[in-house]
């Protein structure tokens, strides 16, 4: 009797872990004003997602809905695969958050404020409370100030206490709304370092800001809000590549160079000092140089200038990032 070889097991299909945050058609209206307009957020696990947009573009309202603080007018939210706000209590324990600035009882110390939040957590072990509180405070560098009243904390310390509140228990995700708001450059750098080190621990982090420059360095992904709409999102490299390069030709034959560039189909031809610039579009630089030389333009310098991420965002949002509104 020939033993039947065991059937080759199906190759294990790794279940695709649900995205850390996924929304579809997420919309919020206050009266007739549509503050968040049908956005489809997609934050992969392990990402540091920069949630960018000018003040008033709907970032904080979106974050409030993600955390079950406000109800969507329409659309669905899944946080770590769990629908919110329907089953929010199941998943919020895995999410730490700073929403619209820190808020604590001014008469209590940093430690007492965290003890209060820990007491509210039905799943937190009271036996380890003190140790977890001190560890969270140490993590954000507030160890020496833990017994000072919140009232005397500097703005930077308040922000860091807010982050510490998100670290009281083990989390899978942090949602940080404008954690660098109002901080000086030193404080901003510290918060950025903290975000980087938390991301190294494997946490998924969504961090919002109205200033690209403050968070660009730590982000792996970006999403850009403009007037309630999510106008772009994706890995930071893709967004950077989406920016167009510009041709820059330094020459004395401005008119002729401009004519040739226009003839090649380059858009937005401009005279800038000694140079002529134009959108490169799909044009290969070697073809452009050949055409210019062939056309008798005296080329002194030639270059392709890649647009910066900032340029990409200015074009997406239509305004600078430090515009308040």
């Amino acid at each position, binding site marked *: 009797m020939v033993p039947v070889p065991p059937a080759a097991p199906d190759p294990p299909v790794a279940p695709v872990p649900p995205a850390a945050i996924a929304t579809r058609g997420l919309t919020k209206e206050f009266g007739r004003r549509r503050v968040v307009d049908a956005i489809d957020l997609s934050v992969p696990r392990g990402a540091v997602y920069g949630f960018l947009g000018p003040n008033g573009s709907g970032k904080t309202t979106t974050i*409030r809905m993600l*955390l*079950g*603080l*406000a*109800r969507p007018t329409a659309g669905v939210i899944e946080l770590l695969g769990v629908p919110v706000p329907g089953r*929010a*209590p199941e998943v*919020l*324990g895995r*999410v730490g*958050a700073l*929403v*619209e*600035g*820190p*808020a*604590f*009882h001014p*008469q*209590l110390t940093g430690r007492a404020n965290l*003890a*209060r*939040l820990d*007491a*509210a*957590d*039905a*799943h937190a*072990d*009271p036996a380890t409370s003190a140790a977890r509180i001190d560890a969270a405070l140490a993590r954000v560098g507030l160890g020496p100030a833990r017994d000072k009243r919140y009232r005397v904390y500097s703005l930077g310390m308040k922000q860091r206490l807010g982050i510490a*509140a998100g670290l009281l228990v083990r989390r899978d995700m942090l949602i940080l709304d404008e954690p660098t708001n109002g901080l000086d450059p030193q404080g901003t750098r510290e918060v950025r370092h903290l975000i980087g080190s938390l991301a190294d621990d494997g946490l998924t982090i969504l961090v919002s800001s109205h200033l690209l420059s403050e968070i660009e360095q730590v982000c792996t992904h970006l999403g850009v809000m403009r007037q309630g709409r999510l106008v772009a999102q994706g890995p930071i490299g893709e967004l950077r590549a989406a920016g167009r390069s510009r041709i820059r030709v330094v020459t004395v034959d401005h008119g002729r160079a401009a004519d040739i560039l226009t003839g090649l189909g380059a858009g937005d031809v401009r005279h800038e000092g000694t140079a002529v610039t134009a959108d490169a579009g799909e044009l290969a630089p070697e073809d452009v140089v050949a055409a210019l030389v062939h056309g008798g333009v005296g080329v002194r310098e030639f270059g392709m200038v890649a647009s910066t991420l900032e340029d990409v965002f200015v074009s997406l949002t239509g305004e600078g990032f430090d515009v308040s509104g």
Partner: protein
Amino acid sequence: MSAVSAWVRLLGSELWLALGRRRNQFGLAVLAALPVLIAVAVAMSGSGGGGGPNFVGAITDNGIFVALAGLAMELTLFLPLAVAVLSGDTIAGEAGLGTLRYLLIVPVARTRLLLTKYVALVIESLIGALTVAVAGVVSGAIAFGLPPMTTLSGSTIGMPEALGRLALAVAYVTAGLAALAAVGLFISALTEQPIVAMVATTGIATLMWILDSIPQLDVIHPWLLVHHWTAFGDLFRDPVFTDGIVSGLWLALGYVVVFLAAAVAVFSRRDVTS
């Protein structure tokens, strides 16, 4: 950790937060001061009598009446004011401060938070009423002694029984304040400004006292919470006259059920935007 001990931990945190506030400690001291003031004033003038509240006349006979007079007087303003201030702190206060959003994302289920805060309010009401009674008994004992007590019906009961009846009076007063606390909690759930909630709750208690004092409106008197509050005096009749107390308890229960349900309905759907 069991669900019960987790809940007790949250309740403890609520009480600790309220009782740890300087403003509330000061308020408690004010509640305690009034019975002392009554005892001192009556002792200095050397006689009860006069047109004061029912109990004042009997104070010189027995110190326990200081506690009863204190409760009767403080129910008109100070005790309702204390309940209004504390209930204003519960939701509106935390919303105004911004701490409400951080509590909710811990997460704490909204109904659980609301009901825990209500239980804390009831315990704080009890502490308030008890403070008045204890301050009254102590200052009354020092000024007038605690001989066997002559009830309002003229019979005499021993001090242990009198203190037992005083404990029942404190419990009854607490029930009335707990009903007002349910109203206060509901208002607190409607607003993000604690001052608004405090003024509104105090205003409602005061308005009920005013309506209760207008004889032409006697049709609505049985429905006014405060109308029944002074019925605790019936505990010091012999035999105890329970009609007023029982209807007071039923009305208080009705207020608690209606306003707690309304508070839960409002708060569980409200957007927290502060």
